[in-house]
């Protein structure tokens, strides 16, 4: 754990990411593991190649997505791309945008880059602020999060426009158990697996895009 080692591994990582996916991902790379324990990360990166006896060792492409694990934060997490249909004021559009909204939140958990999520979170949103803060704190000073990835098996709206011009979308949200890893690699805590939740997103469409105006849970 020398500063030299730190410098080289970080620089290589961010550089590769930037080349592959662009500037925003470089920021993500920084946020995702800026002061990550370099010794561990580089050791595991080298592992698959060294004990290999195959004559043609295939070097791992640098932009390959790698989820977070006990050895380090996720790498090369693709930035969620808003599908074309999610830009339309249609039932399918509202449902697709809702799924996209959760993939942005999932991206924040994986990378520590909560900026994108904060830009699309409604205000006020206590739950959003809470997770944003935890994500930032636990992706700083060498710490990282494992798990926490979100998926949305079902997104459903009646597509009835309310009097205030909003639409309600019910969404089933699944989250992988979230583990908090300290800079020394010890797991500080793992949140228990919770059942899939029902969330309610209240959406508004304007100027060619959807936005979330309110968010809540569905209790029955």
């Amino acid at each position: 754990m020398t500063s030299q080692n730190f410098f080289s591994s970080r620089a290589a990582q961010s550089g590769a990411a930037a080349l592959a996916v662009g500037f925003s991902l470089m920021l993500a790379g920084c946020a995702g593991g800026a002061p990550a324990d370099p010794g561990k990360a580089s050791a595991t990166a080298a592992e698959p190649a060294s004990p290999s006896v195959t004559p043609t060792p295939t070097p791992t492409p640098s932009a390959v997505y790698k989820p977070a694990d006990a050895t380090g934060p996720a790498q090369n997490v693709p930035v969620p791309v808003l599908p074309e249909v999610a830009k339309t004021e249609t039932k399918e559009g509202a449902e697709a945008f809702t799924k996209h909204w959760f993939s942005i939140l999932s991206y924040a958990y994986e990378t520590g880059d909560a900026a994108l999520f904060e830009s699309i979170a409604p205000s006020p949103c206590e739950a959003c602020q809470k997770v944003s803060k935890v994500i930032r704190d636990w992706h700083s000073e060498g710490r990282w999060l494992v798990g926490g990835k979100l998926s949305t098996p079902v997104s459903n709206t009646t597509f009835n426009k309310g009097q205030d011009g909003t639409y309600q979308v019910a969404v089933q949200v699944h989250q992988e158990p979230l583990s908090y890893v300290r800079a020394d690699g010890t797991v500080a805590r793992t949140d228990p697996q919770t059942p899939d939740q029902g969330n309610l997103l209240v959406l508004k469409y304007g100027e060619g895009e959807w936005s979330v105006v309110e968010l809540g849970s569905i209790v029955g």
Partner: protein
Amino acid sequence: MSLSRLLSLLLITVMSLGVTAGPARAEGGEDPEFGGSWSPGLTMGGHTWDAERKEFVPADPHVPSTDPNEYKYELQCHLGGGDFDTPCLARQLDCKDREDGAKGIPVMWLSRPRGVPGAVWAHHSGPTCLYDPKPEDLLPRIAADIQRQFQNLPVNAGRVVAQPSPNTLRGAETNFYAEAVEQQFDITMLGQKVHVVATPVQYTWNYGDGTVFGPQPSMGGQLPQDRWGEKTRTSHAYATTGDFQVILTTSFQGTYSVNAGPPLPIPGQGQFSAPPQGISVWRSLTRNYADDCNTNPQGQGCPGVGALR
């Protein structure tokens, strides 16, 4: 180390360009706050589907919340029809047959949020064991009977406390509160061990003078003696004197778990009443004791003058 520190500061500066606030820094060595799992239900109001308005509406805060999920189980390693996953069977939970010969069958529990139309079943917990020749419809059979079983459990409705007691004054606010707690029971249904947890959620006060308050979610609370007589959410002022029987009826919400499976909601609430608590309501009179018995021998407290009541 100094280079690394400098670099991390630089990185954080770069990062801050794109964000609204810099990362919060914890004290050296201390963990930042936990609680990062996504759960808007904890801080934001719940919504329920309103079938008439065909939209979600904020849930009534006076109605105790119920489990937002529904549950089912599947035979472990069952792929559907007559097909089973062979590798899975090899590491299947070993449910030892019971002493009475009942065959143990491992099941996996699934759940899905009730309120989302078309929600899919997702793994919840397990495997756990069921003991029944027809485990497929065991849960519906238990579910059909659990409400009756629940209502017949010796659930303690709670203790009734009145302040002041056992005597109080006509027209004065008498503070009533309940001391009801969560209770757990183990019963046997259809040969399965069923664990029931009963949680008090609503209270109905029958003050014995024809006044009924509730059901409502407050169990009331204790008042320090120097505040007796204050109006509280559950206090009552008797208009007449006499002896009254106060009856507390507590509504409990229950969950049941079958052979250590997940806690499943018991539909409906169980009503349980506490034994009647007697209270005597007296009247109070204000008398002036400042008279001089020499000038007014009939004055209150003078020798030979009748009792107060």
